[in-house]
């Protein structure tokens, strides 16, 4: 190695880049740290001013998130048997008793069902469509691709009213199926376009080799194309999941009782016995986890996916 190289950045610029990235990381992570720490604060700590950086951690927020509580009269309260569990004890500490589980678990499960199902459906349909667009002579291919892209050109919420009316007629309002179909419809254009790019980059010769080796077109697709598109599929899946997971407006509009997802539910925690910020923060933290886990699992693919096409093999 020579002392000076064209391709290797200098020490100074490495330092500067490192500093910049660190600063950016802090800026982006700060709200996250705020949310996570608020989830572990007690009620008074969460609203104290100036904000407490050091505080006595409490699980009150989490207990409040998963339970509903009632306040009893002083006599009844005194007549209760001693608390049996740690969460009983926390609730009793604030002068209340647990009345039952909250609906957060249900809403969270709805989010999981709807988010992951619509992601899986988008990827399934998107991969097949992208493969067809990439490999076959489809009549009006360019127009169809543009049409698919054009579904993304306006904000989905612009068609909220027609969709609301349509869903009411079809009986899809407030159903899991309805939300899965809706999120799939929004995600599919992204999936087709992203995946088509990935599949275009896979040389046709691989499939042709498989065809000659005695495999059918579908077997060649499944055994040769799919494994090589794994990177693209993984990163597309993450983008689809993030959209479906975080979607708020349609969820508010179209769901209420049965199929409500977590995003419209979390703000409603405010108001149960005052503004329960620790519970809201705890809800947000729990809500973040699946996407974080999913993204970390597919991290390797995601990095390659985001930079795809930048460097050709």
């Amino acid at each position, binding site marked *: 190695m020579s002392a000076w190289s064209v391709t290797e950045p200098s020490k100074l610029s490495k330092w500067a880049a490192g500093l910049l990235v660190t600063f950016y990381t802090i800026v982006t992570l700060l709200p996250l740290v705020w949310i996570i720490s608020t989830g572990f604060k007690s009620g008074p700590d969460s609203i104290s001013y100036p904000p407490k950086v050091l505080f006595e951690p409490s699980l009150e927020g989490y207990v409040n998130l998963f339970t509903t509580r009632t306040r009893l009269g002083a006599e009844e309260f005194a007549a209760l048997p001693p608390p049996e569990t740690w969460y009983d004890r926390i609730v009793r500490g604030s002068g209340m008793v647990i009345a039952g589980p909250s609906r957060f678990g249900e809403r969270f499960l709805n989010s999981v069902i709807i988010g992951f199902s619509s992601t899986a459906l988008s990827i399934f349909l998107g991969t097949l469509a992208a493969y067809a667009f990439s490999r076959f002579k489809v009549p009006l291919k360019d127009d169809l691709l543009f049409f698919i892209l054009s579904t993304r050109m306006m904000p989905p919420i612009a068609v909220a009213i027609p969709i609301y009316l349509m869903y009411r007629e079809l009986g899809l309002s407030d159903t899991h199926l309805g939300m899965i179909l809706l999120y799939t419809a929004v995600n599919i254009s992204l999936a087709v376009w992203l995946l088509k790019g990935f599949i275009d980059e896979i040389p046709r010769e691989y499939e*042709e080799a498989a065809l*000659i*080796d005695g495999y059918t*077109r579908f*077997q060649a697709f499944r055994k040769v194309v799919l494994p090589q598109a794994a990177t693209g599929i993984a990163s597309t899946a993450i983008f689809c999941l993030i959209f479906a997971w975080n979607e708020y407006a349609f969820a508010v509009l179209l769901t209420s009782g049965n199929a409500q997802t977590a995003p419209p539910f979390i703000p409603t925690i405010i108001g149960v016995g005052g503004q329960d910020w620790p519970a809201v923060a705890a809800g947000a933290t729990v809500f973040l986890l699946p996407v974080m886990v999913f993204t970390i699992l597919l991290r390797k693919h995601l990095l390659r996916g985001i930079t795809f096409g930048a460097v050709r093999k």
Partner: protein
Amino acid sequence: MAEIVIRNLRKEFGAFTAVKGSTFTIGDGEFFMLLGPSGCGKTTTLRMIAGLELPTSGEILIDGEDVSQRPASQRDIAMVFQMFALYPHMSVRKNISYPLVSQGMPRAQVQARVAEVARILRIDHLLDKGVGGLSGGDRQRVALGRAIVRNPKAFMMDEPLGALDAEFREIMAEELRALHDRMGATTVYVTHDQLEAMQMGDKIVVMNHGVVEQFGTPQEIYDHPATLFVADFIGSPSMNFLHFEGGFRPGSTTVTLAGTRIEVPQLQEEAEGRKLVLGVRPEHVTLTADGPYRGRVVATEYLGTTQIITLDTAQGQIKARAPSGQRASAGETVGLSFAAPKLSLFDQGTGRAFRTAANAGVFHG
């Protein structure tokens, strides 16, 4: 192993016709070359035989059976691609065993076949490696392994040496030919390199603009080109073309070129007052002290055992290949004589060679 018969094979892509009615036969066990410049339809022809493209019309018979509309997977053919197309997510072993797995062969038998093929190709030590880190030559061998492991009816090779560097190409060309001789498998090989075609092929089809220009052994094609295109495409430096106007009758053994009578193979056709082309390979031009047809030396290129002498003649510039010992200096005017039995006469308008006593047996329709 199989004989492959191609009849009136035609392929259109929209308004573009890639192959315009080819007809030829690939004998059982032949090493058969499809030769031509890029865009001539040779790869399309190969892909139609393999089943990767379906012909617009025409027949492809493998062992007497018309397979032209069947999918590739039902043709029992193996193919080596230009970029090898090894499955990148599989090890060498899996790549080679893949065609056997599709046939549902038992695992033990697959392993035995793969081991045998790896030994033949000297890649046994690479079996458990991924294909990503292999050198060009090893990739080539793995691709060959995947092709031969199945004992298919025929091999298709699409410029398999094109991706290798020059030095390695020689070695692989020899290995390929040796492998073919050992297995006696019918092989169809696409190349744009005329030297490769001459060196390796039993038979050559020369294609241009989707048309089969000539079909024959390397020697037939070199010595008796059927068209001006073939004459020009094969050989380096290429054939000299002496343009003149004139005619001849069946049985003539001379033509008159710039007032000089030049002996040619006995003609079997007739031409009158037409634009003609006399084709002479550089090695069939001899420099003499006297002689009526003359040329002036322009330049000489020394090539070791031979030299290429460029001369100006009444018909334009021509090249002669002479022993390097022969003295020729620029500016000197010399006599030129041509080896009569080796000459070809072409019609300039159609590009077709006239039938003579020398080439009569060579042309196949």
